[in-house]
């Protein structure tokens, strides 16, 4: 049977319907684990798919690092797979394909599926006290639509000419004219199709999330009682809905250019590697920058899609393991929304050097710099939350703390690039690479690790091993910084990205030792993940069984059994207070579950005469 809520195609029963479950006749294996419509199963499917693609992307990163440390030397292991024809030595075009695929996979098939797909699916219904998503079948569809995307993007490697090679940004005309690069043959077409698939997938997801959050919150769970994870996922879903279609449109235009020679992005009178659009009788007269505008209109909001949910998870993890209410809950919510809103008017900061009208660039700069403001509010409120807390240094907490620390670094380096004159020098140098890996790997991915450790007990009813977890954290934290902090240095030295072999230039020759150091850290980072994988596997089978609420947390998901049965909760929940009632004075428990009717109702969201915590001394 399909989930009882979803028994109608769109889940459009008149509201208030109470279905009686048919839990008893068991589902077959396929319906239960493969084509399941249960949001928990789908979430876990997304989780493992995402980890798998993360491994792929990570391995490609290792190949990149090898080439940068020891250019044109035989690459161990990976070389055999990636460059068989040269006996494991990277080729120039092969390198361009490597980072293109690395970036694409990491952005579209790792971070977004993990954050919104895995945790969005698993957490949203549980955290708002709903039995399932609004449209479970659509949900399942969303998962399965991602697979053609993954298949196509991997297939691209096999096509004649090899995988796409125009960067994850796919700037035309390089990406639209087949003669321009080996990878711009059918590989690029597959790339576009893959993106469309993943786009449709996250579209289905986003519609589902927003509808569920708006329409299916448990009685009493007002918007301003929602956990910040839900807020993060909610706003991220809205970003998807309003930004992604534009990329889809642009993607179709690029497909038109490639398949029908439509020339939207092809300026006239260019001769690319002997090929001339006019001579071939193709349309021309379009503008390359048009693509950049449309692409970044999506892809800048996308970077916030890649961080807002992570921020939400971190806020929740901090509160739970610090046993303290979130400091400034409402400012947190407003800043999430502000980041999202501003995110729509800053995309041009990726185009300062692109030949864009420099006056327009000035406007973009001002808007961009202003985004630091809501981010600042978040950072300071996290510190405020921790101040005067009783922190428990559990593994999830460690990763959450790491996120705060790392996001500050990544965010601050954004300020340089936001300032147009400085960006003249650092655009497309490794400072940019350092910047976005700090926010996206050291930020989002570490937050994802934290979220896995934190919600694993809820997902599988077992704890992950704390000792292994802490070992995993220690190494990951150290090597991550080893890899990415040094990239600032080579960036300031002027090394630009997407360069297969920088050392031919006298300007860069002396940077090889540093690059080698970075690469060694990267390899160590990869191997260190073994502790995580082992921990994952062992805990799945033999981890300590836990109860419903191992961490002593207040939010609704911890009221369900671990793992939650079909329909999630034993009975209808009624929410009586905000999500962060920890250490309430005069209560004997140091946390008050949102749905626990005993004790005081909602605490004031702002205690006017609260003891002033000390960050003020530090931050002024």
């Amino acid at each position: 049977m399909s989930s009882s809520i979803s028994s109608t195609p769109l889940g459009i029963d008149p509201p208030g319907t109470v279905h009686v479950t048919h839990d008893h006749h068991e589902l077959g294996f396929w319906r239960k684990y493969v084509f399941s419509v249960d949001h928990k199963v789908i979430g876990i499917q997304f989780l493992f798919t995402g980890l798998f693609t993360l491994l792929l992307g990570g391995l490609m990163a290792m190949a990149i690092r090898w080439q940068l440390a020891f250019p044109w030397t035989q690459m161990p292991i990976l070389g055999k797979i990636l460059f068989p024809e040269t006996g494991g030595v990277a080729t120039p075009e092969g390198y361009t394909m490597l980072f293109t695929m690395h970036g694409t996979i990491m952005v579209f098939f790792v971070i977004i599926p993990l954050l919104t797909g895995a945790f969005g699916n698993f957490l949203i219904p549980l955290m708002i006290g709903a039995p399932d998503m609004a449209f479970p079948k659509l949900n399942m569809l969303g998962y399965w639509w991602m697979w053609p995307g993954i298949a196509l993007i991997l297939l691209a490697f096999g096509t004649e000419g090899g995988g796409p090679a125009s960067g994850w940004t796919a700037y035309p005309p390089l990406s639209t004219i087949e003669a321009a690069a080996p990878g711009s043959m059918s590989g690029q077409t597959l790339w576009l199709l893959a993106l469309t698939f993943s786009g449709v997938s996250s579209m289905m997801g986003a519609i589902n999330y927003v509808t569920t959050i708006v329409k299916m919150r448990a009685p009493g769970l007002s918007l301003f009682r929602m956990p910040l994870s839900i807020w993060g996922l909610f706003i991220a879903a809205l970003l998807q809905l309003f930004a992604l279609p534009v990329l889809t449109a642009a993607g179709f235009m690029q497909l038109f250019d490639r398949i029908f020679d439509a020339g939207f992005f092809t300026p006239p009178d260019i001769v690319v590697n002997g090929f001339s659009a006019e001579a071939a009788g193709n349309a021309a007269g379009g503008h390359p920058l048009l693509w950049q505008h449309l692409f970044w209109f999506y892809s800048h909001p996308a970077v916030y899609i890649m961080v807002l949910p992570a921020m939400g998870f971190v806020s929740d993890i901090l509160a739970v393991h610090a046993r303290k209410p979130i400091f400034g809950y409402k400012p947190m919510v407003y800043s999430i929304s502000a980041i999202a809103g501003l995110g729509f008017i800053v995309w041009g900061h990726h185009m300062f050097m692109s030949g864009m009208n420099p006056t327009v660039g000035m406007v973009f700069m001002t808007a961009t710099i202003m985004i630091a403001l809501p981010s600042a509010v978040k950072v300071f409120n996290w510190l405020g939350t921790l101040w005067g807390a009783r922190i428990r240094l559990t593994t999830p907490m460690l990763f959450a703390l790491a996120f705060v620390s790392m996001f500050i670094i990544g965010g601050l380096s954004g300020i340089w690039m936001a300032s147009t004159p400085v960006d003249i020098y650092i655009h497309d140098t490794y400072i940019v690479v350092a910047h976005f890996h700090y926010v996206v790997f050291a930020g989002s991915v570490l937050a994802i690790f934290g979220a896995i450790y934190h919600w694993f007990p809820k997902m599988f009813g077992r704890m992950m091993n704390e000792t292994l977890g802490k070992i995993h954290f220690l190494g990951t934290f150290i090597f991550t910084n080893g890899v990415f902090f040094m990239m600032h240095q080579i960036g300031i030295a002027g090394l630009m990205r997407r360069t297969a072999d920088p050392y031919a230039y006298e300007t860069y020759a002396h940077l090889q030792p540093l690059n080698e150091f970075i690469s060694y850290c990267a390899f160590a980072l990869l191997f260190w993940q073994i502790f995580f994988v082992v921990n994952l596997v062992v805990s799945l089978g033999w981890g300590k069984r836990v109860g419903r609420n191992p961490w002593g947390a207040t939010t609704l998901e911890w009221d369900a059994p671990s793992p939650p049965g079909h329909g999630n909760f034993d009975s209808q929940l009624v929410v009586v207070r905000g999500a962060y009632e920890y250490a309430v004075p005069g209560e004997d428990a140091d946390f008050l579950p949102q749905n626990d009717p005993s004790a005081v109702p909602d605490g004031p969201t702002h205690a006017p005469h609260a003891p002033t915590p000390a960050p003020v001394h530090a931050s002024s």
Partner: protein
Amino acid sequence: MSSITTFDPLVDAPKHHHPVYDYDSGPPVERGKFAIWLFLATEVMFFAGLIGAYIVLRSATESWPNPEERLAVDITAFNTFVLIVSSWLMVKALFAAEAGDRSGILKWLGLTILGGTLFVSIQVYEYIVLFGEGNLPRTDLFWSTFYLMTGFHGTHVVVGLIWLICAWVAAARGKYTPKNYLGLELAGLYWHFVDLVWVLLFTIVYLF
């Protein structure tokens, strides 16, 4: 970890035979309708991308050809009329559904589908003629933008038609009651949206 409570079957085991409950929070709008409007918002952004690209290329071009010389405005004007009519018939169908008059639904909805089919066939005819004259997307920017926008609108019309046909079958099965004809309403919303987009496209593609 001191804080971790161990598994206690009495408290922690899932209680069986629990009811699966469903309730409605937030504003008074059906989930389906809420979702469809979200979806329509994304569709708006999608066409904003396509039309935006056209406007940019177009308004930056001095020598843009005169659409009236390249396209059959009269036929398309008639086609626009057809689509608007079908949109109006759709409203009629909804009213019928509201009145619980099934044969009414079938009649009006049937006519709507007829109108839509006519629109598509006329557009297909237009394409065939244009192709015959050797006007392909690769010919020049005018044609590539033309095929891009009208093409994607056309596919939307086809999707809408399929949806309407499903609704018609459902209606024939008597699925729609005066209390609940949401399925029909959603199909209608999509159909009207397709009509709305065409109103804009017709103006900027054929008349500018």
